[in-house]
């Protein structure tokens, strides 16, 4: 499991607050170039807050977030995005005052090397059919999720933060999302995934970190998943 390369993302002693409430109590983990890493944990464990802290959209944060060797703590979220990090939020964040095409083209290109629109339509054929639709929020839940992922593939961001992309979706759509994540890994994207559904995560992830009460409490590689299933059931309370 040891790798000589420096990680693409190195999070160290990350603490975060919303107003008065202290959510993250020193989170440390890393993600190497080209990996799919999954954060597992119960509701309220701090998974989403970890993604938001990396993206710079929580109230207050301390510690260190190194991305390609650059320190992101203390930067505003627009500058973090321009460094090459992109977020697909849990609530998907499709804009109701924008049509489907405007939603897809909204995030500006921050670096060269993003996917061409045609390639995005290869991954999500439904999106192409829906381009003419009037309102982004009129799409089905699965289509909205595809739109939320599709729009951050154009921008040239190398690290994708995906927050529960399968939440509330039908099994056939979940399979398609899984296929897409594996295809994105092939394309060289690095992905940090937040999931509650570790059955789904096991079809895409290289490594796992388990979170509880705002800390990382365990980690293992995908190959070690079977040996850890009982422990995981405990952690996740399933």
């Amino acid at each position, binding site marked *: 499991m040891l790798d000589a390369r420096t990680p693409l993302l190195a999070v160290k002693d990350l603490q975060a607050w919303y107003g008065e409430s202290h959510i993250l109590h020193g989170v440390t983990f890393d993600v190497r170039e080209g990996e799919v890493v999954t954060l597992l944990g119960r509701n309220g464990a701090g998974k989403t807050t970890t993604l938001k802290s990396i*993206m*710079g*959209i929580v109230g207050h944060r301390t510690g260190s977030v190194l991305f390609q060797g650059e320190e992101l703590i203390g930067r*505003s*979220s*627009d500058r*973090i*995005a*321009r460094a090459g990090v*992109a*977020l697909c*939020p849990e609530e998907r*964040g499709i*804009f*109701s*005052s*924008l049509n489907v095409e*405007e939603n897809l*083209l*909204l*995030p*500006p290109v*921050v670096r060269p090397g993003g996917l061409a629109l045609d390639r995005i339509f290869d991954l999500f054929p439904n999106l192409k059919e829906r381009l003419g639709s009037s309102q982004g929020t009129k799409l089905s839940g699965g289509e909205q999720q595809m739109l939320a992922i599709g729009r*951050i593939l154009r*921008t040239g961001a190398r690290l994708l933060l995906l927050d529960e992309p399968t939440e509330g979706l039908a099994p056939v759509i979940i399979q398609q999302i899984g296929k897409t994540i594996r295809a994105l890994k092939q394309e060289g994207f690095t992905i940090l995934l937040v999931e509650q559904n570790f059955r789904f995560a096991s079809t895409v992830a290289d490594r796992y970190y388990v979170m509880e009460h705002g800390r990382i409490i365990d980690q293992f590689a995908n190959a070690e998943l079977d040996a850890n299933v009982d422990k995981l059931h405990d952690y996740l309370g399933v």
Partner: protein
Amino acid sequence: MVEIFGIPSQALFGQLLIGLINGSFYALLSLGLAVIFGMLNIINFSHGAQYMMGAFAAYLLLQYSGLGYWPALIIAPILVGITGVIVERLFLQWLYKLDHLYGLLLTFGLALILEGVARNYFGSAGLPYTVPESLQGGRNLGFMFLPNYRAWVIVASLAVCFGTWFVIERTRLGAYLRAATENPTLVRAFGINVPRMITLTYGFGVALAAFAGVMAAPIYNVSPQMGSELIIVVFAVVVIGGMGSILGAILTGFGLGVIEGLTKVFFPEASNTVIFVIMAIVLLVRPAGLFGRRG
């Protein structure tokens, strides 16, 4: 003499024209208010004073730099817009997370200061500003006499209103603005400098008010209170159209100008109150306004 509904056609069309002129100013001003409210969540009570600043800027440019109407039509909105940018950076940016009331009070206080300063230096009698030479005179349309300058005001106002509507509803920049109105945090996390966009939006809204002020200078007197007289009606227009709706602000502005003009013909006694009566009815029937999104 031709009569329509027992009214001489000259009088009818004359009032219709005045209604369209007033409607042009209602539309331009309520458009600026709608743009500012949509993006900043601030009810810009200094909008009337900024309109007045536009007219004074045109007057001063002529007095001290010899720059006439046409250069003033470009320069005055830019200058006044820059003062808007400064106000946003100094004051307004601290208020977005607070209740609407704070922004309203701050901009209202600002309006009082601006008017007081203008009254101190220029008195309240009003200063003349002549119609540019190229637009003097008028033409006889057969059924009425149309002064060239008034025709220009209507056309220019329509062009600016629909230009603004087009940029907001049909371009990439407009998509950023609409998205940031909905979810500024996420738009910023895509790499867009939202705070700068907000500052420039306020500057643009203020520049629109100043543009209206320059256009008004040759029609109404350039006076410190020209804004406060107009802005009360404009706020009623915004309430009727629905706060934050771009197209609503434009259509309601022109529509109510015309309704007000027609009321002057058919029932002159009600002409000063008709807009407020409509406002009361709209508030009862559709509290979010005719074009408001929340119903």
